[in-house]
Every structure is written in structure tokens, then in C-alpha cells.
């Protein structure tokens, strides 16, 4: 059985972000990059499947050669090998483009189970994995919090607002992971050493037969801004009952939000 995991490199969630002088992009120089947190759950699930069912775990990432670092972190967690779909130093990939490249690489690979994060915490696009599944013509389920393998099918719980669906999908299928499904492991030192020897195959994007046009998007960024940060920051003084009374008064009578 082969399990493929899609991982994306994103700025650390603790990053303070700035808008570049062009007013249309974020300054990425100097940022620390990590594997998108939801992808860690996908990698963990894959490794658990390796431990319980002897799966071969292949990690894929599409992007500039720098994304190799996060493929390496997944290998250090316990994945077997990696594939870097190298887009060179080309600008941001569109979701359509990323999905096309990943689907083309996955078609060659032929995985039984494809796992991805429910969304990447940079663009919060929430669509690359679903697009990949559609391009491959396989069933899929998003935002899963439980995964159970049974023969040639998988039973999963998926989270919806205030509820849950339990589904059974025939394999091959794609799933996106939500927090709560597992606790991603930290790589141990011996595994970090072992990961250095594991293979990361490079596939230049141009070799995947995806037309250059398909990597372009029709969504044009007109401007980027930082959200309103100014808050009143009024610390209410007095004894406790007075402060609470004043808080209720401002919320009710002034702000009119209660």
C-alpha cells in the first residue's frame, strides 16, 4: 500500500507580517518557514498507517527548491521518501496550478491513499487537495478527525459546524486532515539523522506535461492591507462590581452590541 502526503511550506504562525512597497504582496524575506500545521496531522496519520499496515509513505511538495526543508522534516517524522515538484524560482503558484502539478506527479506515483492538510495557513485557500482529487477522478473527504482503514475502503469522521458525518470511501481516495485526528510526533534525533539519507526525487515542473497557461490564475490582487489594529484598550477601573457594571453599560448603551 502506498500513502502519499501533500505538504506545503508556510511562514511560521508566530510571524508578524508586513505588506511590501508594491502594496500587493507580503514581505517574505526574513520570515521563518515551517510545514503548514494541518499537514503535520496528515504526515502523522500516514506514519501511523505505515506502523499499522506497513504502508510506503511518500511526501510531495510543489514549489521552489527551498520546500525541500519541509519534505525533510516529514522524512524525519518517519516518511519513507519525498518528491519535490520543482517550480524553480517562479512566483506564487496558483491553486489551480499547484493542483495540476501535484495531480500529474501523483498519477505517476499511483497512491492508494492521498492525505493533505485541510488548508494551508498562508493563503488559507482550502482547495488544492479537492482539486487534486477531482483531477485524478477519485473520491475525497475534507476536514477529517478520524480515519480507519478496512480492506479496500476507509471509514472517516468529518467535521461540520456543530456536527459530524461518518463516511465510507472506496480507495484510492483523498482526505484532508483537521486538528483532533492525532497529535503529530516530534522527530527524534536518530530519525533526523536517518532522514538525511532518504531519497528526495526532484521532478522539474516542466516535465509534468502541464501547460504553462494552466499555472496562471485569473485572480488579480489589487491591494493588500493590514486589518484594523487600533483598539480602544480601555482598562476599566474601580472595585469589581463597579467595573462589571461599567463594562455592561458601555457594551449595552454605547457600543450597542449586547
Amino acid at each position, binding site marked *: 500500500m502506498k500513502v502519499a502526503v501533500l505538504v506545503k511550506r508556510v511562514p511560521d*504562525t508566530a510571524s508578524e507580517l508586513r505588506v511590501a512597497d508594491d502594496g500587493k504582496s*507580503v514581505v517574505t524575506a526574513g520570515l521563518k518557514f515551517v510545514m503548514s500545521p494541518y499537514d503535520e496531522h496528515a504526515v502523522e496519520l500516514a506514519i501511523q498507517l505505515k506502523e499499522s499496515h506497513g504502508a510506503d509513505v511518500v511526501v510531495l511538495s510543489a514549489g521552489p527548491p527551498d520546500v525541500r526543508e519541509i519534505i525533510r522534516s516529514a522524512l524525519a517524522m518517519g516518511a519513507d521518501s519525498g518528491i519535490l515538484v520543482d517550480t524553480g524560482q517562479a512566483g506564487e503558484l496558483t491553486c489551480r496550478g499547484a493542483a495540476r502539478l501535484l495531480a500529474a506527479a501523483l498519477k505517476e506515483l499511483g497512491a492508494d491513499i492521498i492525505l493533505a492538510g485541510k488548508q494551508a495557513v498562508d493563503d488559507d485557500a482550502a482547495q488544492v487537495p479537492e482539486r487534486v482529487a477531482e483531477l485524478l477522478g477519485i473520491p475525497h473527504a475534507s476536514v477529517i478527525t478520524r480515519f480507519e482503514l478496512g480492506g479496500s475502503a476507509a471509514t472517516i469522521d468529518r467535521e461540520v*459546524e456543530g456536527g459530524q*458525518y461518518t463516511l465510507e470511501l472506496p480507495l484510492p481516495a483523498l482526505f484532508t486532515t483537521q486538528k483532533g485526528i492525532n497529535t503529530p510526533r516530534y522527530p527524534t534525533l536518530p530519525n533526523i539523522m536517518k532522514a538525511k539519507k532518504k531519497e528526495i526525487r526532484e521532478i522539474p515542473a516542466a516535465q509534468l506535461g502541464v501547460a504553462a497557461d494552466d499555472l496562471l490564475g485569473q*485572480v488579480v*490582487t489589487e491591494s493588500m492591507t*493590514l486589518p484594523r489594529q487600533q483598539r480602544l484598550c480601555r482598562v476599566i477601573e474601580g472595585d469589581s462590581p463597579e*467595573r462589571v457594571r461599567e463594562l455592561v453599560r458601555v*457594551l449595552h448603551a454605547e457600543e450597542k452590541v449586547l
Partner: protein
Amino acid sequence: MSVLVLLEQRGRLRKCAFEAAVAARDIARAAGLPLNAVYIGASLADETAELAGLGIARVYAYENETLRHYSNDAHVGIVEGLVRELGAQVVIGSASALGKELCASVAARLDVDLVQDCVSCAWDNGLTAVKPLYAGKVLSTVRLTGTPAMISLRPNVVSVARDDSPAPEIERRPMPEVTLRSVIKAVTEAAAGVVELTEAKVVVSGGRGLGGPEGWPVLKELCAVLGAALGASRAAVDSGWIHHSHQVGQTGKVVCPDVYIACGISGAIQHQAGMRPAKIIVAINKDPSAPIFKVCDYGIVGDLYEIVPLLTQELKQTLV
């Protein structure tokens, strides 16, 4: 040419369906296009009246018991087919868990771009939308130049302002032939009266400052008075005090209530990302130097176990 809105239902039409319809109505008016809607479910029968005042000309209703619960295999084909048939120029869905999956799949089938989880949209010789990036640390204004232009709208960012437009015409359609690959084994819905975090007008959240799960009853009493949803910091979730579905933040939910009340939460950057869209933020924390006091509107420095019960009492008297 038309605008198509996807009406999400889970047994009943969801609040986010009406919100998406209102946003779509305003786009359709500005663009001079008719607004149509698609309903996929068991039966729309007793809910048609609720669709008045939303500017919808026609609802394409695919009604079948098999369609009671969302099934990707069935829904995606229906929406894709209808978009093609109508030559829709704009497609608007809801950025709920199911809505995002549906929109992503449909966009892939149509091979068009999609912007998920928009907080507003407008018509200006084409569709523009505001899309939060990095969990809202950055707001991006984008123009969609492809056809159809497709977005999903975040719940709770549009108020459902009805006008005097009549109830739509309902065109009932049979369910298309489709092979359902995934099988629904069970559906669990939250108990009635539990307010969904992303749709709540008021959110009360607790963090490590609760000291343990015994703090939740105190916060829940405040929630009950306010009709609020209960949130939590990651520290509270990771301590095993509450289910992860309550987590607010960059790796939890982004909420946009009128009031967010953070109790015993320090205000880490990842937590801020989840509460930032709130109109008013209130912080209750016993440490006057906690970062949350720099990103809130009103703060009370004090022990939450003293302040929160007082607040619940006071509100009971004010809100009668």
C-alpha cells in the same frame, strides 16, 4: 448570463445560505443580472416562503431523499451541470466546511479559480472580493477575471437584510443519475440550542487561566445569558480540557462576533488571528501586562472566577 447562489442546507436552510443569497443579490443588482439559486436536499417544501426578499428569481430545487445529507459525488455534479447550463457568470457559495468542499470541487470541474472564505464582495465592472490571508493577519482585495467568477462567503459577515422582492419561482428537478462512491454511515448533529462558533453574535472564550476544565460551567453560565458560543485557546484544548472544535485562532476557528470575551487568555499572536474580526473585544485577565490588553477594546484586570459570575449577574438584570 446570471448569478448563481448555492443554498446550503442541513435539514433546514442554514443561516449562511441566506447570507450568501443577500451578497449575491447585491452583486446581481449591481451587475444587472438575474439571480438564481440552487437547492439540493430532501425537500424545500415548507421553506420556500423564507426565500422571499432575497431577490432570487428562480430556485432550481433538486429534491430527493438521497440528497438529504451532503454527498460530494451528487452535489458537485449537480452544481457543475447547472453552472454550465445557465452560463452563470458569478457563483457564490458559503465558506462552511461542506460549502468549501463543494466550491473547491466544482471549481476544479469547471477549471476556474476560486477564492474561498471572502469577508465581502462587490461588483465593479467584474467581481471583486476581500479575502483574509494568514488567518486574517493580512487582507487582500482581489479581482476575479475568469468566468464564472467563483467565491465562497464567510458565515456571519453579511446581515440578512430582506427587501420587498417576491418569493422565487421554484423549478423542481429530478436528481441526476449518479454513482455515489462514498457512503454516509452516520450523521450526528449538535444538540439544539448550542450556538455554532463561527455564526455566533457573542463568543465567550476560556484559556489556560481557567486552571482546569472546572472553569467551563462558569463560562457556560455567561454564554447562556448572552446566547453566546463557547470558545477556547489552544492551551485549553491541548490540555485536554475541551474538544478541539472550540479552538479559536490561526489553527482553530476564525470568529466574527459582535463581542468576543476572552477569559484567562494571554493573547498570543495565533489566538489574535482567530478573534481579530470581532467588532468589540473584551479581556478578563489577572495579569495587567498580558498582551491581550493591547489588542482589546475593554479590559478588566482581575480573577475570572470573581469577574465572570458578577458579569453574568449584571447581564441578567440588564438584558431582561
